[in-house]
């Protein structure tokens, strides 16, 4: 028989400050995202990318919609706004036009940007608004209970498609390419260094830059589809993601538990809405 467990030694709790705390609202942490959720990692990469680009903090605004990812606006220590569902892009458009010297970043989820705000994102990309959009794609409506989203892969099970989704999902980079976005990249949250670099490039890009971030949703997507934990999804990304820079966006759609093609797909220069409106350019060219 083992001896009675000794009283656990008191763990030393000295005051620790994370180097990223200056960019975060420290009093709001720990955040509400589930264990093994990928959104935190994406925010971590964004904060680091922002620091590396040397854009002054007061010149950056973060706009979020509703959903799990919508909470990002409440955690970054920047000018931020948590808008209504799907309306992050119209708010950001207004902000970018009223304050042309500011860098406006829309940080929101797939359900918010592509489904409910779908009309706004395609028109903002068409007009080439000077905003950066970071779309966290976890293939499901997380906050409301795991309903089928417009990015849910075919045959994936969700709470509203218990026998498997029958619809074709959006191929978001292709959609953005068709609408004329100037920068399109896709990375999983496992590609932290590349994601950070892509975010830095998108922040420095003039015009509509779009990054799709594939993130694990352990509580709803993985559980409903018997895919294990978020860490199992990370292992899946490790084994099944393929980097193809400049790939044809038509070919980068994601099937259920199929290969994920990552990389920088589009990087072009086009006059932005404001430049065209002010007549600073005559048609094409920079």
């Amino acid at each position, binding site marked *: 028989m083992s001896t009675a467990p000794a009283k656990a030694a008191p763990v030393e709790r000295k005051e620790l400050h*994370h180097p990223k705390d200056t960019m975060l609202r420290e009093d709001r942490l720990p955040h509400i995202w589930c264990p093994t959720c990928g959104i935190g990692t994406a925010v971590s990469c964004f904060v680091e990318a922002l620091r590396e680009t040397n854009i002054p903090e007061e010149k950056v605004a973060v706009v979020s919609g509703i959903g799990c990812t919508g909470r990002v606006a409440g955690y970054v220590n920047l000018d931020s706004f948590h808008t209504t569902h799907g309306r992050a892009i119209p708010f950001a458009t207004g902000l970018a036009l009223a304050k042309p010297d500011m860098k406006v970043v829309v940080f929101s989820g797939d359900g918010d940007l592509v489904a409910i705000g779908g009309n706004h994102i395609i028109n903002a990309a068409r007009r080439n608004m000077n905003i950066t959009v970071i779309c966290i794609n976890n293939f499901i409506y997380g906050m409301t209970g795991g309903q089928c989203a417009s990015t849910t892969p075919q045959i994936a099970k969700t709470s509203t498609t218990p026998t498997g989704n029958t619809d074709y999902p959006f191929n978001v980079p292709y959609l953005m390419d068709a609408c004329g976005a100037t920068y399109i990249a896709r990375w999983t949250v496992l590609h932290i260094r590349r994601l950070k670099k892509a975010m830095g490039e998108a922040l420095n890009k003039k015009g509509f830059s779009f990054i799709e971030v594939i993130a694990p949703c352990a509580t709803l997507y993985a559980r409903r589809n018997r895919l294990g934990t978020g860490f199992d999804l990370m292992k899946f990304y490790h084994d099944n993601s393929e980097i193809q820079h400049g790939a044809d966006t038509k070919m980068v759609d994601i099937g259920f538990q199929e290969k994920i093609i990552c990389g920088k797909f589009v990087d072009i220069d086009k006059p932005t809405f404001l430049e065209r409106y002010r007549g600073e350019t005559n048609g094409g060219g920079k």
Partner: protein
Amino acid sequence: MKLWRTPLDAEKVRVPHGVVSVIIERCKGCSFCVEYCPRDVLIISRNFNKKGYHYPEVVSEGLCVDCNLCEDICPEFAIYSDPVENTPAPATKENT
């Protein structure tokens, strides 16, 4: 690290060292840092934090090379490494 032979520039290359700090109360026990640490510096602790998660613990402190991967991959902003200023002399045949 096991090497076939001493690298030619072993005298010049200084392997950076870091000290890992864990903000225990923020951790949610996802184990990303433990699994992806390239030097296996961390393990999952047997202790719980206030919320009932097993947080990571440093087991082999001298091995950390301050790559900051744990800091970048942590979704909870709960772990980071600080560089050690006085990096020890580079590894040679004698002291490895």
